[in-house]
């Protein structure tokens, strides 16, 4: 359904307002019901551009961008769905709904990979809110005003940011603590501003967070990254928004200050980069001297076809962008619905990678952002008669683990690192301690140095129990 003109002003549709969208009446009752019920648990948001330009309404619900933005009944377990459906549509008991919803959410592994337990940095003995510092070189910053998006992805691993549970939300009102923390940490070279989507903010608000990073005392910060899906969900941000030109001038200012500005552009499917306005957005970003890097998770029902990745990476490179990552979908939220086996992820990656220009082979994957670090599946091989996954760390909590190969027994059903067991009769992977389990007792150095560093100075670390 092509429109003659694009929506010019961003206005979100939420659960309360989606019935106002022209396309709502095209949806069969059971799909509308699924949206109303599941959006009580998982965040739901979309906009007119996504609905007009990216979704093929003749192909719903299988259309990939429909699956990407509209919740599906199977995202909840059958019993959770039918129970919640009854509460929402029949009994309409708000208190009971809130209870049920909270229970479902807490069982969905919010903020996986130790984000709340191990990634929160400390300064003067206090946790710094709105920051994460997992890898030595890179600090993550979650500005309060950026903790929403132009549309929400159904699979989003940061879903707890959007569900009104304040105890699960990472955010910082302003950047003074970030600046103070960065001054204390000369080993940090990269700041990633993320959310949500920082480009939901107007340029004035965004500049308020970015400009303090350009001071001489922060010369050790080489790269400012902005994680965003506005490039796909609202490319008008860079082209026709009232302050688009101001935004591009801000990008130029960062570059002129001597830093690299990397826009980490999240495109899940080539449909998102096919529209003329999306392509114009890429060119305008790149023309400021900023880099645009492409990254996305591999998601069942949405982008399982290697040809889609080939088109995405090839188009991106042609327009001046740099393919960066194909991630494995994290083990959180409705991951049972979106997960693929690691073996399949590897096949898809290999097939796409082997079909693109060398210039697109900057992309790494399939990579799991797991508790100890970013683990990539390099291959499936047979060594001395044993079929194994060949793995390595692209990035890790401990720098000396990076690029160290290791091997796991091949398992066609494994979907995440914690499904894997070591190959060759080894008892544990090199990065695991004897007390390995989801809740570890580990030597904690965090409170003194600021960042959590797994203690490995002795074979049997003195356990200082932390509530993980």
């Amino acid at each position, binding site marked *: 359904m092509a429109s003659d003109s694009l929506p010019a002003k961003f206005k979100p549709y939420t659960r309360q307002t989606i019935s106002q969208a022209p396309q709502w009446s095209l949806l069969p009752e059971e799909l509308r019901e699924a949206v109303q019920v599941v959006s009580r648990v998982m965040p739901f948001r979309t906009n007119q551009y996504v609905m007009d330009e990216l979704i093929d309404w003749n192909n719903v619900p299988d259309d990939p961008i429909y699956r990407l933005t509209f919740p599906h009944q199977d995202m909840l377990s059958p019993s959770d769905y039918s129970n919640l459906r009854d509460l929402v549509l029949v009994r309409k008991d708000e208190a009971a709904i809130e209870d049920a919803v909270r229970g479902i959410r807490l069982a969905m592994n919010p903020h996986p990979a130790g984000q709340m337990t191990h990634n929160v940095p400390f300064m003067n003995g206090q946790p710094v809110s709105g920051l994460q510092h997992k890898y030595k070189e890179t600090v993550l910053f979650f500005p309060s005003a950026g903790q929403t998006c132009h549309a929400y992805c159904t699979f989003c691993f940061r879903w707890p940011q959007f569900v009104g549970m304040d105890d699960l939300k990472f955010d910082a009102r*302003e950047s003074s603590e970030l600046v103070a923390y960065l001054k204390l940490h000369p080993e940090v070279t990269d700041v990633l501003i993320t959310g949500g989507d920082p480009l939901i903010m107007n340029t004035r608000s965004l500049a308020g967070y970015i400009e303090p990073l350009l001071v001489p005392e922060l010369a050790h910060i080489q790269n400012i990254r902005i994680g965003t899906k506005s490039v796909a969900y609202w490319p008008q941000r860079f082209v026709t928004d009232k302050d688009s030109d101001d935004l591009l001038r801000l990008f130029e200012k960062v570059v002129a200050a001597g830093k690299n500005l990397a826009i980490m552009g999240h495109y899940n499917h080539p449909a998102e980069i096919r529209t003329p306005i999306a392509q114009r957005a890429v060119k305008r970003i790149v023309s400021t001297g900023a880099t645009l890097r492409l990254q996305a998770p591999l998601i069942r029902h949405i982008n399982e076809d290697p040809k889609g990745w080939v088109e995405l990476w090839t188009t991106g490179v042609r327009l001046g962008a740099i393919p960066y990552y194909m991630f494995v979908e994290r083990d959180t939220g409705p991951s049972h619905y979106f997960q693929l086996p690691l073996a399949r992820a590897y096949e898809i990656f290999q097939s796409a990678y082997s079909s693109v220009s060398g210039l697109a082979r900057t992309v790494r994957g399939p990579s799991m952002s797991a508790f100890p670090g970013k683990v990539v599946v390099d291959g499936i091989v047979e060594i001395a008669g044993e079929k194994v996954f060949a793995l390595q760390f692209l990035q890790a909590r401990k720098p000396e683990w990076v690029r160290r190969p290791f091997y796991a027994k091949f398992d066609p059903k494994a979907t995440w690192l914690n499904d894997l067991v070591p190959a060759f009769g080894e008892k544990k992977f090199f990065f695991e301690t004897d007390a390995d389990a989801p809740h570890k007792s580990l030597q904690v150095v965090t409170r003194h140095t600021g960042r959590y560093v797994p203690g490995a100075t002795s074979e049997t670390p003195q356990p200082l129990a932390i509530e993980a």
Partner: protein
Amino acid sequence: MAYVVTESCIQCRYTDCVEVCPTDCFREGPNFLVIDPDECIDCGVCAPECPVDAISSSEEIAGTEQHVFIELNASLAKAWPTITTRQSPLPDAEEWKDVKSKLTHLARDSVAG
């Protein structure tokens, strides 16, 4: 759906809310603030900032006595200028913050430029 500034703000006007707004949708009057519903993107970041809990989503107040503020925010937003920087609360904010039924005290003139 948009968020709405309601009665508690009148005569207090703390302005803690304005700095977190990512789309500059607050408008200022002499003793009250409003949110422009055309600019509001429902991010919800402003509501917890208000020391007197004056901000609610329009969905929350529909059907309550505060619902009149939905229309008030929409109409006053057209006449009032944008505010993006926090200011001091009004001098008698402390006295007024727990007062109910302040609507009659709402000053609707545009703030002098």
